[in-house]
C-alpha cells in the first residue's frame, strides 16, 4: 500500500517521467493500432514487432553505443525490411500472405535472438540492458531514451490526427479513395510507417515479443464499445494509457519483473471485460437478450393458451385452474407458475378463487398473438405454397416477433382474411 501511495503521489520526478513515457508509448501504439486493425493488418503488426529485434542488435553492434536514436534507426530499418519481404513473397510467389507473415516473423526473430546471444557473450560491458527489448522494461525509460521515445510517440499521435480523414478513407474503401485522386500508395506507405514507428517505440515498454498486443488489443476492445471511429480512437488511447500506467507501476514496484507481460495481461483483461460486458455486442447483453426473448415467448404462449380456452367456452373472462392450463400445453409447471404471476403483476391476468382469468388487456394481447399465428399460417400457405399441416410449427415462433407494421402489411397482402388454413377464425 505504501508503494502504491508513493507511486501515485508522483512525488518522485523519476516516477513522473516513467509514467508519462509509458502513457505516451501505449497511447500512440493504441491509436495507430486502430487503423492497423481496421485495415486488417493485425498480423503484420506482430511480424514487424518481432522483426525489429535484429535491427536493434545490429545497430548496437555497429555503433557500440545504446544511443536511443541509433537503436531506433536500426529497429526501423529491419521492421521495414520485414514488410517489404512479406509483400515481395506474396506478390512474386504462390505463397499466401499468412504463410509469408509466419515465415518472415520467425526468420527475422531468429536472427535477432542469434545476434542478441552473440552480443551477450561478447563481454562488452555496454550491452547490459539490451535484453529488455525482449520483454520490455518501462522503469528503465529515463533520460535521453525517454525524450527520444516520447518525441516519436507525440509525432505519431499528431500525424494520425492530421491524417484522420485520409486514413479512415483508406481503410474503408481504398478503390474509391483512388478514384477521387487520393495518393493511395503514399497513404499506405504512411500507415505502414506509422505502424513500424509505433512498434519501435512501443517495444521499450512491452518488448518485441508482446508488442502486437499493445498495437491491436486496445483497438479490438474499443471497437466493442462504439460504432464511431473517432470515439474508438479515444477509447483505445484511454485503454492504452491505463495499461501504460499499470505497466510503469509494476515495473517500479517489482524491478525484477519485465513490464511487457504485465501490460499485456492488463490490456487483455480489459479486452475480455469488453467482450463480456459491452452494451449490445457484448456476451452478457446477448445472453440477456436471449433470456428476454424466452420470457416473452413464455408469457405470450400463456396468454394465447388462455385465449384458446376462452374461444372454446366462448367466454374470455372465465377463470381456469392451473390444472386446466397444464393439460392444455406441455410447459413445465414451475415455468407456468412463474409466468402466470409475472403476467398478473403486469395486469394481463387476475387470480380468483376459481383460478386464473384474462383481464381485458390480457384478452387483447392474447388475441393479437392468435391473430398473428393464424395470419402467418395463411401467409405461408398462400405465398410459399406450404401444405396446411406444415405451417403450425413455424407460426409458433414467428407469432412472437412480428411488428405492428408487418402485421398491417400482412393484413393488406392477405386482403383482411377471415379464416386461417385450418378454418379457424382470425380474430
Amino acid at each position, binding site marked *: 500500500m505504501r508503494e502504491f501511495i508513493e507511486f501515485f503521489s508522483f512525488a518522485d520526478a523519476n516516477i513522473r517521467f516513467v509514467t508519462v513515457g509509458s502513457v505516451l508509448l501505449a497511447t500512440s501504439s493504441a491509436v495507430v493500432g486502430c487503423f492497423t486493425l*481496421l485495415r*486488417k493488418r493485425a498480423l503484420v503488426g506482430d511480424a514487424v514487432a518481432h522483426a525489429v529485434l535484429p535491427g536493434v542488435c545490429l545497430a548496437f553492434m555497429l555503433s557500440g553505443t545504446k544511443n536511443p536514436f541509433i537503436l531506433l534507426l536500426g529497429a526501423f530499418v529491419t521492421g521495414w525490411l520485414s514488410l517489404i519481404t512479406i509483400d515481395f513473397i506474396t506478390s512474386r510467389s504462390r505463397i499466401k500472405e499468412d504463410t509469408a507473415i509466419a515465415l518472415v516473423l520467425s526468420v527475422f526473430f531468429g536472427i535477432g535472438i542469434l545476434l542478441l546471444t552473440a552480443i551477450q557473450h561478447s563481454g562488452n560491458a555496454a550491452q547490459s540492458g539490451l535484453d529488455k527489448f525482449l520483454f520490455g522494461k518501462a522503469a528503465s525509460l529515463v533520460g535521453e531514451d525517454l525524450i527520444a521515445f516520447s518525441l516519436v510517440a507525440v509525432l505519431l499521435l499528431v500525424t494520425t490526427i*492530421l*491524417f484522420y*480523414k*485520409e486514413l*479512415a*478513407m483508406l*481503410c*474503408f*474503401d481504398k*478503390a*474509391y*479513395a*483512388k*478514384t*477521387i*485522386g*487520393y495518393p493511395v500508395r503514399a497513404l499506405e506507405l504512411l500507415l505502414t510507417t506509422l505502424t513500424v514507428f509505433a512498434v519501435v517505440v512501443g517495444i521499450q515498454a512491452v518488448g518485441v515479443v508482446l508488442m502486437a498486443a499493445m498495437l491491436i488489443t486496445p483497438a479490438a476492445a474499443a*471497437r466493442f464499445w*462504439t*460504432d*464511431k*471511429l473517432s470515439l*474508438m480512437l479515444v477509447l483505445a488511447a484511454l485503454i492504452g494509457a491505463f495499461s501504460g500506467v499499470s505497466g510503469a507501476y509494476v515495473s517500479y514496484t517489482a524491478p525484477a519483473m519485465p513490464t511487457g507481460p504485465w501490460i499485456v495481461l492488463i490490456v487483455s483483461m480489459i479486452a475480455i471485460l469488453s467482450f463480456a460486458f459491452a452494451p449490445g455486442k457484448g456476451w452478457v447483453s446477448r445472453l440477456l437478450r436471449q433470456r428476454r426473448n424466452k420470457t416473452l415467448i413464455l408469457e405470450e404462449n400463456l396468454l394465447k393458451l388462455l385465449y384458446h380456452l376462452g374461444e372454446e367456452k366462448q367466454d374470455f373472462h372465465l377463470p381456469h385452474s392451473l390444472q386446466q392450463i397444464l393439460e392444455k400445453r406441455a410447459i413445465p409447471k414451475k415455468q407456468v407458475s412463474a409466468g402466470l404471476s409475472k403476467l398478473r403483476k403486469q395486469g394481463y391476468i387476475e387470480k380468483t378463487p376459481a383460478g386464473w382469468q384474462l383481464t381485458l388487456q390480457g384478452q387483447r394481447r392474447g388475441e393479437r398473438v392468435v391473430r398473428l399465428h393464424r395470419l402467418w399460417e395463411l401467409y405461408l400457405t398462400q405465398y410459399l405454397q406450404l401444405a396446411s399441416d406444415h405451417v403450425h410449427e413455424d407460426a409458433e415462433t414467428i407469432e412472437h416477433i412480428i411488428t405492428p407494421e408487418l402485421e398491417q402489411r400482412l393484413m393488406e397482402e392477405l386482403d383482411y382474411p377471415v379464416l386461417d388454413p385450418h378454418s379457424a377464425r382470425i380474430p
Partner: protein
Amino acid sequence: MIIQVENPVVEVHDLTVSYDRKPVLWGIDLTLPAGSLVGVIGPNGAGKSTLIKAMMDLLPAGSGYVRIFDKPIAEVRNRISYVPQRESVDWDFPASVFDVVLMGSYGKLGLFKRPRQADKDAAMDALQKVGMQSFANRQISQLSGGQQQRVFLARALAQNADIYFMDEPFAGVDIATETAIIELLRTMREQGKTVIVVHHDLQSATEYFDWVVLLNMRLVASGPADQVLTQQLLEQTYGGKLTVLTKVGELLRKQEFPARES
C-alpha cells in the same frame, strides 16, 4: 457493330487488361457519347467490372489508353465518380451513413482539410435524393443491401461529378431501390451527366439504357441500345466463351509470357 462517336466523353483505345498475365479484356476500342445512360452488358466473367476499373485507372492497362473529356484520367479526377460493388467494402466499419456520404466531398477538399458546413449540407442533400435522410445517423452495418447501395450512390452524388461509373448498382437490391435508382439516373442524364453502368439483367437493359456495350472478353458491340440489343449480337455475346481466346490466355499465364513484346 461498333459505332464510334464524335467528341466522345470516354475514349478507350486498344485496351488490353490482364490478371496474373492472363488477358481478361482483349484490345477494346470504343467511344461513348456525352449525356447518355450507358449499360455495360455481358455474361459472368466477361470483364465488365474490369473494363470500368481500367477506365478509371484502378487496374493497370497492359496496352492501350483511356481518355476522359479528351484528357488523361489523372487530370480529370474531380469530374468523375465511382460507385463500387457493394461487397467490395467491409460494412462493419465503424462509420455512420452520413460519414460515408461525406466522403464524397473529400476529393474536392484535398488533404488535411476537414469537411465544411457546405460539404455537410451537400451530403444531406445527396441522402435526400436517394431517400435515406432519416438514416443519416444509422451505423452502416445495420443497413439492408438496397440501403447500402443507396448510400454508395449518395456518396457519388455528393461529389457532383460529370461522369459516373457504377459497378452493378442493381445487383441484389429490392424493387423499390431499383426503381429509385433508375429514376435518379434519368434525372442525372437530363442534367447532361454521363452514367456508365455495369448491368447483368438483359430484360431491363432495353428499357434502362440508351447506349449499350456488349462485352465478353472482347468488345462485341457498342452503340445505341435499339441497334445493339439484337438476337444475333446477344448470341455472340452470351454464346459461350471463345475457346481459342481463353486457351491462349491460359498459355500466357502458364508460360509467364508478357502481353506485349516490349
